[in-house]
């Protein structure tokens, strides 16, 4: 019964003969931050797209709670407890901040309300306000998402992914393009989120990776190169070779 939230078994896909992701297997369970790192083109984003059904794998399987979800359609992810953010800020700029969150919480409401005026159940409305407070966005709640600063938009992006109470959160470079101060705030937020849900993260900033992660998975040329605690991974000679180009016999 206690199958892990996410289990990848031999996942692989090729684009025009190049193996973007090649035989990758690992599991994610419980809470805490698992970070996927690797040089550009290592297949990190492709891996996310495979998990979330944007790309169909050529081989391998994706299991969620032990149930086969390999070819899931993206709009079903929510219902099985997976939220996702994007590398490029992917918000609804023409909607207000509150509306962005409300829209993300809306699937919690019953379907039959979709043609009634915009009203939220007290519970959902409270959840929206909680998220606004937690991500320090209250002051901007009635402004358009397009008017926020870049750091605020990235924060909103995480809040939107978290809105529907997922058990697994996929975050694709959440601190990309943030100022140093904003990055610190975001790191704190991600740590606090990871107390309750499993977070699978893609990140470039090695300093951040070492401070934020409970576990690090290193990808290189589509394959999983190493998997362990930040310290274990840092000291792995294979990882050092891939990152720093040391010659290896």
């Amino acid at each position: 019964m206690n199958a892990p939230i996410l289990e990848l078994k031999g996942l692989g896909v090729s684009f025009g003969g190049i193996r973007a992701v090649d035989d990758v297997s690992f599991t994610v369970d419980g809470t805490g931050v698992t970070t996927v790192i690797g040089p550009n083109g290592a297949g990190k984003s492709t891996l996310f797209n495979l998990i979330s059904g944007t790309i169909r794998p050529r081989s391998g399987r994706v299991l969620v709670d032990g149930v086969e979800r390999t070819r899931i359609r993206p709009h079903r992810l929510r219902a099985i407890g997976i939220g996702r953010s994007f590398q490029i800020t992917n918000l609804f700029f023409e909607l207000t901040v509150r509306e962005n969150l409300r829209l993300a919480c809306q699937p919690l409401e019953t379907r039959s309300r979709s043609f009634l005026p915009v009203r939220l159940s007290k519970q959902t409305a409270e959840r929206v306000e909680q998220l606004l407070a937690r991500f320090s966005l209250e002051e901007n709640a009635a402004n358009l998402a397009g008017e926020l600063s870049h750091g605020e938009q990235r924060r909103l992006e995480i809040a939107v992914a978290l809105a529907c109470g997922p058990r697994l959160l996929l975050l694709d470079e959440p601190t990309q393009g943030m100022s140093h101060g904003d990055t610190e705030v975001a790191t704190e937020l991600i740590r606090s989120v990871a107390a309750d849900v499993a977070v699978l993260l893609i990140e470039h900033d090695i300093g951040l990776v070492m401070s934020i992660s409970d576990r690090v998975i290193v990808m290189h040329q589509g394959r999983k190169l190493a998997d362990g605690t930040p310290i274990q991974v840092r000291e792995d000679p294979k990882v050092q070779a891939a990152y720093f180009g040391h010659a290896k016999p």
Partner: protein
Amino acid sequence: MRDRLTAAMTASHLMVAVLVVAGIIFAAIGAATGTVFYLRLATEALIFAGLALSVDILLGYNGLLSLGQALYFGLGAYVSGVVLKLVPSFWAAMGATLVAALVVGIVGGIIANRVRGVYFALITFGMAQVISKVVYNTRALGASDGLIGIPIVPVDLGFITIQSNSAAGFFLVTLAVIVILYAVTAYLLDTPFGRVLIALKANDRRVPFLGYAPLPHRLAAYVLAAVIAALSGALYPMLRGFVSPELLFFATSGNAVITVVLGGIGTLVGALYGSILLTVLKSVIGTWTEHHLIVIGVLFMAAVIFLPKGIVGLVRPALSRLVRGEAGK
């Protein structure tokens, strides 16, 4: 505090209210002085405003340019015309049009919503062209002459019956129908369903990850637009007593797009003001020169460059702030 979208929508409602008051005054003056020509012209402007409204649902709320909305407008006009020749009943014509628009809208929507962007524009254009050629060559529908000899229709409203040949009366009937169509559209677009549409327009990659399937929402919006266009078209034969196949032509679809751009994309009320402006311009410039389309074309380009939110964009933001300010107190 009210959110911006609801405030903007309230501002649109106020502008429609102004239009209704102006319309009633206009009808009273028209009836008193017996100026049939201008009342008929205004009625026609309102009918084409309904078509423009349907274009704005797709363009303003779905981000989809339809170049074939005349298909549904013409469908409404022909269905209404055929029904009226059999039974001269306003309600039978509107009912039959509604059913026909739902059926054709669902079929057309399934075809057109397979694609996005330029391809959507091309497919809607193509579908409208095919149907217009078929109708143009169908003897039973009057072929190139169109449907002629549509009788005068009594519009039975329960407490009063208005004849469709009464210029002021039918103008008010048309005004009522268009305002109802506007109200239904505005209501639906201000529900959670409407917000999903705006989200789809803004970012259709993200929406599925929030747990919404895009296609049912797009299809519903498309069918809504089809119904609005068809019900507006259904009024046309009552006004003119005939249906011309030209109603199905590209010029009709193109005019509706120009109307929305002039009036203000995504404002709904812009379709109404845009249509009135365009009709007035055509008629006024038409009395000076037969090349009025040149002027319309230049105006269209000027609107695209200088007024990206159309003529409504000049007024609505201020009105919207006012509405929000009041709510904030």
